[in-house]
């Protein structure tokens, strides 16, 4: 009896926790559909639902252009991270060269530096390179990630040495070993890095605000932020919520597709680390 009762308590707690996470999200989605006057209530339910907020948003800001920009920037930088960081991780895990551990230590160290600290020097660099108001400024600083390098390195170190020996005898080069042997064996790592990095750069609003002023290359978070704080939204909550909803939609879609691998890799990389 007590076992059953304990289980009941456990489920109640879990459900309560799930609601805490889900409620703001549901509230936001509901808010985009409700009449403006009813948004600021506790209940997500409204008297009627419409797409008015979305229509208004589309008429007021170039949301599709910024959606395109966001996709472009996020995809290119994620692809770069997958290639470059897996190559770095491979070198750190599997190649023998002088200064390997020193390089790894430096990379680890950059993980503890908050982004705000490097913001100004990075901005100055962008100005000197003449990259302000270009896609390059949005993409290039995000083509490397210490987190990704670390994850790849840990994953690659767990691959048995004999497999690499066999591949060398079969005729694979270092690059071949990375892309034809390690990549297929590291799908969970690739997917984790892909999702985490994609989400990170997709949600990034601060850096674009600093290096981009031209509306044509603004990303969505930047656009939405500007839209919310400047007068354009005219303090219409529904509008702002609609913009936010559009912004998170791609992330949710990607996550739903890949969540199986994502969870798997979080579990395994934890064990192997």
């Amino acid at each position, binding site marked *: 009896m007590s076992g059953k009762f304990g289980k009941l308590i456990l489920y109640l707690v879990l459900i309560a926790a799930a609601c805490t996470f889900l409620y703001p999200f549901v509230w936001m989605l509901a808010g985009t559909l409700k009449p403006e006057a009813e948004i600021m209530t506790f209940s997500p339910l409204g008297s009627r639902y419409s797409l008015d907020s979305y229509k208004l948003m589309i008429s007021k800001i170039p949301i599709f252009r910024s959606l395109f920009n966001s996709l472009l920037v996020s995809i290119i930088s994620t692809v770069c991270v997958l290639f470059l960081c897996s190559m770095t991780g491979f070198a750190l895990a599997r190649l023998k060269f002088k200064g390997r551990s020193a390089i790894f230590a430096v990379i680890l160290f950059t993980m503890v530096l908050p982004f705000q600290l490097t913001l100004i020097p990075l901005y100055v660099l962008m100005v000197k390179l003449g990259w302000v108001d270009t896609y390059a400024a949005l993409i290039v600083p995000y083509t490397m990630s210490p987190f990704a390098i670390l994850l790849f390195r840990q994953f690659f170190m767990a691959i*048995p040495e*004999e*497999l690499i*020996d*066999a*591949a*060398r*005898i*079969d*005729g*694979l080069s270092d690059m*071949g070993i990375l892309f034809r*042997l390690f990549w*297929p*064996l590291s799908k969970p790592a690739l997917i984790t890095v892909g999702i985490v990095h994609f989400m990170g750069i997709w949600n990034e609003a601060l850096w674009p605000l600093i290096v981009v002023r031209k509306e044509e290359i603004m990303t969505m978070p930047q656009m939405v932020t500007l839209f919310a704080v400047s007068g354009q939204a005219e303090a219409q909550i529904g509008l702002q919520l609609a913009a936010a909803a559009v912004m998170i939609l791609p992330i949710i879609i990607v996550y739903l597709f890949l969540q199986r691998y994502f969870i798997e890799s979080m579990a395994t990389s934890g064990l192997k680390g």
Partner: protein
Amino acid sequence: MEYLTGEDMAEVILENVSKIFPGNVEAVKDVSIEILDKEFVVLVGSSGCGKSTTLRMVAGLEEVTSGEIQIDGKVVNDVPPKDRDIAMVFQNYALYPHMSVRQNMAFGLKLRRYDKKEIEQRVQEAAKILELEELLDRKPKALSGGQRQRVAVGRAIVRKPKVFLFDEPLSNLDAKLRNQMRAELALLHRKLESTIIYVTHDQVEAMTLGSKIVVMNKGRIQQVDSPLSIYEKPKNQFVAGFIGSPKMNFVKGEIENGLFKGNQVTCPLTDDQKNQITSTSCMLGIRPEHLRVEDQGIDNGSIKGEVRFVESYGYETFIHINVNDTLLIARSESGNQVKINSSISVGFKPSKAHFFDQNTEQTLTS
């Protein structure tokens, strides 16, 4: 067998090869071996003696610190593994987990740009030889240990390499499967007529598979010989103790007037032995199978002691005899009734005794 038999000559020669790992670990010291075409050479020795390192240097997976390795007359010190025309079978099989059995076997050929038809023919033939036809589309995960081992062998033979390298390929299999695979490997060698270098720490594998055995210890070669010579004429005490199961018995003693005496053991020397042995103190070695209750007599060696315990295998029995606190082992045919703690004396033919120098541990006879 039309697609997989090689026609090239493949001699492998190691000349004064040494390997020093970072941290000054001398894994292999001054090793010279000549391996003839179609020869089955077994490198044997205890764990950590440098067998794998030697093999990996032949494969090109490990750089040679000094010395020279030749394959088929060419010095290959600076040739990468893929261009050495060798194939290797690993202890843990090292199959690519994301590929099917067929893809695993075909991979090396695909990378060498063989045409599809040729690849398929070779894979089919290897699958037939190794009885893998039904399993070609499975992933390694779905195979048993023995099947994985077969695939690993298949991956090597489709390449038709000049030289096959095996690194303890059977040590992950259970005893029964190991015996079976051992027989199959011997058969395969005869079918393929190829040069094989085989590493093991198992002396049974070494004795049964090798046409030539290389015994190694602490990075150095101890003896290179046919299995029989290794057994009958060990060059030093290490080889004598390593080959043979149970281990050879050793007794310290002195020789006086053609008679060895030491620790309750006496042995009259044969004329041959008398002529060759000049020193007086030495180590006598006698294998358990030559220590027999039946072999007692005045012309024979003899040992007196107390029975400590008896191991019976049914077809043979090993008697552990305590002689002044050293244990010696004697073999006897089964059915022999010996009581524990009773005193016993066993004999041996002097011609079966080995004599080693107490300091250098080298044999005193030849």
